[in-house]
């Protein structure tokens, strides 16, 4: 048979192959060489070896394939076809090793290495025996070799490893709870599967379609997916799906646009493509840097929030400690002052007794303030327990009014208590002691403190299925600005300390927390500064 074959120069240069073959093979080899150079410095030691294996294996494979496309020499066809078939399982083993190392985050075990070696033995035996490439096909002028069971064994190894990757991925996805880990795993598995598929498409598409030339694009896809894998590995420590997605999208657009520049022949289309490519460069850059900056800022913010929470917690503990110490000291002082004032330590001159009495009041007020701060802190932490039981609200409020009556009288205020007949008892379920001291007494005392002249009216009624407690005074009133921070922690009114020097700003915060914990609501109303105010507490019947 006479076949018109070009004689190849330097093994690979001849007119026997289409120009696209050189484009696909040489481009892929160059991308892999660049990737090797780039990843050598960036990857960890162990995935680096697997990546090296994929890259070297694929470079050798592509080089052998290029020789087969270009060469007419039968010895070369037999030899390089055999080498190519022996190297092929090595690329897949490299990809599988990469998958194992990445997902387990450690080097390969000795058992796995031996498993790989045993998988390779049939390939290494069948190649020299002539069972991988069994002879030259001279039935036509296509310069093909006849493939034997060595090649089929190679396909078996590739299918087995691909199956193992898929099964292991599915199993790990089922058992991994961490979402970020699941995304990482999916990305790597997808990258490896696409790398496998790119390779298989390049090899086998032609078998089914008969189009040996177009299928060569698959070889360009392989280093792109390898680059994707290397990128994920480099980004592993600071893995961020949004950055990865946007980077991948931009790179994919670049590849798409640049490939259109080569493929499309219509001149107006090429100009449009060039324009799109030029526009894409600043847009892509802005998009990638913008997203990266945003993600970085968010991470910093999260870190700072975490640090702030820790600092707050420490401060809270410190405040608690100081509060308890101060309260203890003030309680001891009160005891001493009371003993002196009452003459337990002997007769006290009148002038000294006046000072001691004032000191006693001050230390009691001080202790009460510290106690309020500690209570607020406990309420915020949620460490307060409530002893709830049914009790008569009317009886409790009447008792509170009775206790503070002296205080109102001392200021010359009229303290009025009215309770509508509810037809039944004002029975509610709640913590009687805490509601009495921290809510009702606190509200009535507040009204007395902030009312220079006039009256304080305490009322209790049942309306619309609710028990409504209200304290209405003719005091200094509440401005709109003060209303906003009235029930907040440490939320003083703007001028409240001018009227009540001992105000801590925690009383109403505590009252609100306790009311709500007992199923009630609390609110304050005032027509403005100097027009008095009304505090209302409601409980469902």
């Amino acid at each position: 048979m006479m076949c018109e074959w070009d004689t190849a120069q330097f093994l690979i240069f001849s007119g026997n192959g289409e120009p696209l073959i050189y484009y696909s093979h040489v481009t892929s080899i160059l991308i892999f060489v660049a990737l090797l150079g780039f990843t050598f410095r960036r990857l960890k030691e162990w995935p680096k070896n697997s990546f090296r294996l994929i890259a070297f294996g694929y470079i050798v494979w592509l080089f052998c394939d290029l020789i087969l496309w270009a060469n007419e020499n039968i010895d070369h066809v037999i030899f390089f076809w055999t080498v190519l078939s022996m190297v092929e399982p090595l690329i897949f083993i490299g990809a599988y090793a990469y998958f194992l190392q990445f997902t387990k985050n450690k080097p390969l075990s000795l058992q796995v290495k031996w498993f790989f070696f045993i998988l390779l033995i049939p390939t290494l035996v069948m190649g020299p025996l002539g069972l991988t490439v069994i002879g030259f096909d001279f039935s036509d002028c296509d310069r093909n070799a006849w493939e034997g069971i060595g090649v089929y064994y190679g396909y078996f190894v590739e299918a087995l490893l691909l199956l193992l990757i898929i099964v292991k991925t599915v199993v790990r996805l089922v058992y991994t709870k961490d979402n970020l880990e699941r995304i990482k795993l999916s990305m790597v598995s997808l990258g490896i599967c696409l790398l496998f598929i790119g390779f298989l498409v390049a090899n086998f598409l032609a078998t089914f379609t008969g189009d040996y030339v177009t299928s060569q694009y698959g070889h360009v896809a392989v280093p792109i997916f390898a680059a994707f894998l290397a990128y994920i590995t480099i980004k592993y420590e600071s893995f961020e799906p949004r950055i990865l997605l946007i980077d991948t999208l931009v790179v994919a657009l670049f590849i798409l646009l640049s490939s259109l520049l080569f493929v499309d022949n219509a001149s107006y289309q090429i100009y449009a493509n060039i324009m799109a490519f030029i526009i894409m460069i600043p847009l892509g850059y802005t998009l990638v840097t913008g997203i990266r900056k945003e993600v970085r800022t968010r991470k910093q913010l999260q870190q700072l929030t975490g640090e702030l929470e820790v600092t707050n917690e420490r401060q809270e503990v410190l405040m608690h400690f100081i509060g308890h110490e101060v309260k203890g000291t003030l309680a001891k002082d009160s005891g001493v002052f009371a003993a002196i004032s009452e003459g337990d330590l002997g007769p006290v001159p009148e002038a000294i007794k006046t000072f001691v009495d004032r000191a006693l009041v001050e230390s009691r007020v001080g202790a009460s303030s510290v106690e309020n701060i500690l209570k607020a802190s406990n309420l915020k932490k949620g460490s307060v327990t409530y002893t709830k039981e049914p009790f008569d609200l009317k009886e409790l409020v009447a008792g509170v009014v009775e206790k503070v009556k002296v205080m109102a009288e001392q200021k010359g205020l009229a303290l009025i208590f009215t309770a509508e007949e509810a037809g039944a008892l004002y029975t509610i379920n709640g913590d009687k002691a805490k509601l009495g001291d921290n809510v009702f007494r606190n509200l009535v005392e507040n009204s007395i403190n902030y009312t220079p002249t006039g009256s304080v009216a305490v009322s209790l009624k049942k309306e619309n299925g609710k028990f409504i407690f209200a304290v209405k005074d003719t005091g200094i009133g509440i401005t709109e600005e003060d209303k906003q921070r009235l029930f907040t922690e440490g939320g003083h009114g703007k001028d409240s300390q001018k009227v009540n020097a001992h105000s801590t700003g925690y009383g109403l915060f505590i009252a609100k927390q306790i009311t709500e914990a007992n199923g009630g609501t609390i609110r304050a109303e005032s027509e403005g500064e100097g027009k008095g105010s009304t505090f209302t507490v409601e409980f469902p019947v």
Partner: protein
Amino acid sequence: MSKPRRDVFVLLVLSAYILAIGVTFVRVYVYHAYPIYSSQEEMPNIAEQLRTLIYWPLL
């Protein structure tokens, strides 16, 4: 300084490949020990290939 164990394994795989490729090289370029088929009928079937694989140490 002891060398890491993986070097031994890499060396083993590398040696096996060099040996296999070396033998193939000699078989192809020195002895030209491969058939040239002009039709599919002349090719050995899978059973014959398996027989070669099983009895190769006796060849």
